[in-house]
């Protein structure tokens, strides 16, 4: 899957370098925020580990052997950002020191294996192991499936990059200038090997390493487990994104009285009484492409309108005189109810989960 120099056109290489650089930048920024100074030795040594594991000949079912990428276990232990950087480092070393993969195609190889591989592996692992305990068997299976899918997603990306070359880059006589095979040949040729060998190798090493960590070093699985206790145990501070979310909610709450500035009524949010008031009728017609509303409110609307009376009609409790204050109170009350429901649901889920576990 390591694309050598000469297989991809310079413009393809440039685009994929751009994509990889954007990913590196975002990941390094994220890592610095979460792990601060520990990031440099951790990522570097993990890159060395991934490099060495890539050289292991793994015995596969059927008597053959295969090489893994190591991206799945990196995503599980370090998280997607750490995996992108450490696998990219390992790929850069392979290209520079051992000629495995080209220099012009390093961006493409990093994009395929480090970026796509990490993201697919992490997303699959998190989705399939959601709410599973650290020592759950489901985590091992999730890691295996994530490894298989990540290796194949990386291979598919490489196959597509190689397969579009003859269509995009050929001379006047139709001679392909770079990789010569179109998508219909490149995709099956590359995917066959990955669906059968490389994908299984990645699945075997990922599942095996997760099983090993469950027994030997479960703390390493805690960071990306999604379990609340795990995050506390590993000593990580709350991700900044959550604090930013709270700040956004607060700003939105404060800004709710802005709604008073809007004139008229939102289209489709009319009350049955609006159909009988001339000024409201004129406004409905004006916002409905000058189609006049029916003379009486629709019967269904009339029937359902009295079904539920909100505690704060028109976003303001009856005892509040100032509309701005009414908006603020309504927003705080609404947000509070939403939070309460969310907290109750979370507590219920956790209780059912701990009952299951015991």
């Amino acid at each position, binding site marked *: 899957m390591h694309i*050598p*120099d*000469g*297989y991809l056109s*310079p413009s393809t*290489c440039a685009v994929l370098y751009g994509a990889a650089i954007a990913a590196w930048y975002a990941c*390094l920024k994220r890592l*610095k925020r979460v792990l*601060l*100074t*520990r990031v*440099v*030795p951790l990522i*570097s*040594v*993990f890159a*060395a*580990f991934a*490099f*060495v*594991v890539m*050289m*292991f*000949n*793994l*015995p596969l079912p059927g*008597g053959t*052997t295969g090489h893994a990428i190591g991206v799945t276990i990196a995503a599980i232990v370090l998280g997607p950002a750490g995996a992108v*950087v450490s696998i990219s*480092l*390992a790929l*850069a*070393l392979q*290209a*520079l*020191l*051992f*000629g495995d993969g*080209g*220099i*012009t195609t390093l961006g493409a190889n990093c994009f395929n294996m480090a970026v796509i591989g990490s993201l697919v592996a992490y997303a699959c692992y998190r989705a399939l192991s959601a709410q599973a305990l650290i020592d759950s068997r489901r985590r091992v299976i999730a890691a295996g499936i994530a490894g298989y899918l990540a290796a194949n997603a990386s291979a598919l990306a490489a196959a597509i990059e190689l397969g579009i070359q003859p269509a995009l880059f050929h*001379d006047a*006589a*139709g*001679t*392909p*200038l770079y*990789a*010569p*095979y179109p998508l219909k*040949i490149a995709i099956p040729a590359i995917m066959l090997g990955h669906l059968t060998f490389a994908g299984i190798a990645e699945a*075997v*090493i990922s*599942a*095996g*390493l997760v099983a*090993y960590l469950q027994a*030997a*070093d479960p703390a*390493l699985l805690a960071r990306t487990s999604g379990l609340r206790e795990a995050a506390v145990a590993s000593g990580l501070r709350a991700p900044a994104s959550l604090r930013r979310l709270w700040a956004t909610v607060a700003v939105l709450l404060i800004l709710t009285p802005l709604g008073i500035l809007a004139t008229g009524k939102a289209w489709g949010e009319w009350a049955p009484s609006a159909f009988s008031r001339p000024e409201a009728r004129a406004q409905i017609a004006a916002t409905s492409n000058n189609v006049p509303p029916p003379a009486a409110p629709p019967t269904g609307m009339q029937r359902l309108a009295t079904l539920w009376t909100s505690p704060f009609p028109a976003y303001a409790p009856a005892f509040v005189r100032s509309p701005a204050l009414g908006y603020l109170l309504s927003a705080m009350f609404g947000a509070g109810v939403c939070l309460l429901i969310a907290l109750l649901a979370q507590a219920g889920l956790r209780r059912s989960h701990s009952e299951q576990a015991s």
Partner: protein
Amino acid sequence: MVASSLRTLSRTLSHALVSEQIAHQSGLMQSLNPRVRVVGIVALVITIALLYKPWVALALFVASVALALASAVPLRTLALRVWLVVLAFTGVIALPALFLTPGDPLSAAPSITRQGLHTALMLIARVETAVTLTTVLVLTTPWAQILKALRSLGIPKEAVMMLAMAHRYIFLLAETATQMFESRESRRVGVLRGPERRRVATQAAGVLMSKSIDLSHDVFLAMQSRGYRGEVHVLSEQHMTVRDYAALAVFLAIAALAIWVGR
């Protein structure tokens, strides 16, 4: 399985030793500033990707072999490590293109097309030249100098530092893995079945990972004890001489000429 993993690991280690030996001999590349070597070789590798005419690609290949010879890189090393490996890999990939590429027929019995021959030749020539040039750079330039050159060329210092550390620990971890396999092998009686072999391999990888994480903690503490606060400083005192500028001009002139003639 274990034996072949060991072979791969020891081959990696021995390649690194060969590199160090050649880098300390006197030769054309060795006499140039590492920045000139890196820029020159990268310029030529990009050039080879831009070429369309096989004869120009071939000329660039000959030039890269001449550069290797002038830099004390043995042809035998190049032939075994680069040319044969690339020919086996890219040759197998390029061969069906002779027949599968639609175009003007050159021969009837096996229906080879002119376009197929052109694309197969270009693919092999490009890959052989690019890998030869990269190998010449790596064999003639110690890793620390490549990193310094990358730093002075604007690669972020965090990236350069992580590359340096990863390189440093690859050899340590490769050696640790070799020792683990050897000790496991020395305690083995009889033949292992498939699932057992898989378990041995993944367990070795697991132990290696635990050791890597422990090692990273130790390295972090060592760095902190030396005053590391998240800021990276890389020394790079590399002075360019007139000869270096002249060599850089020659590299870039060859690249420009090849692009002008070869497209």
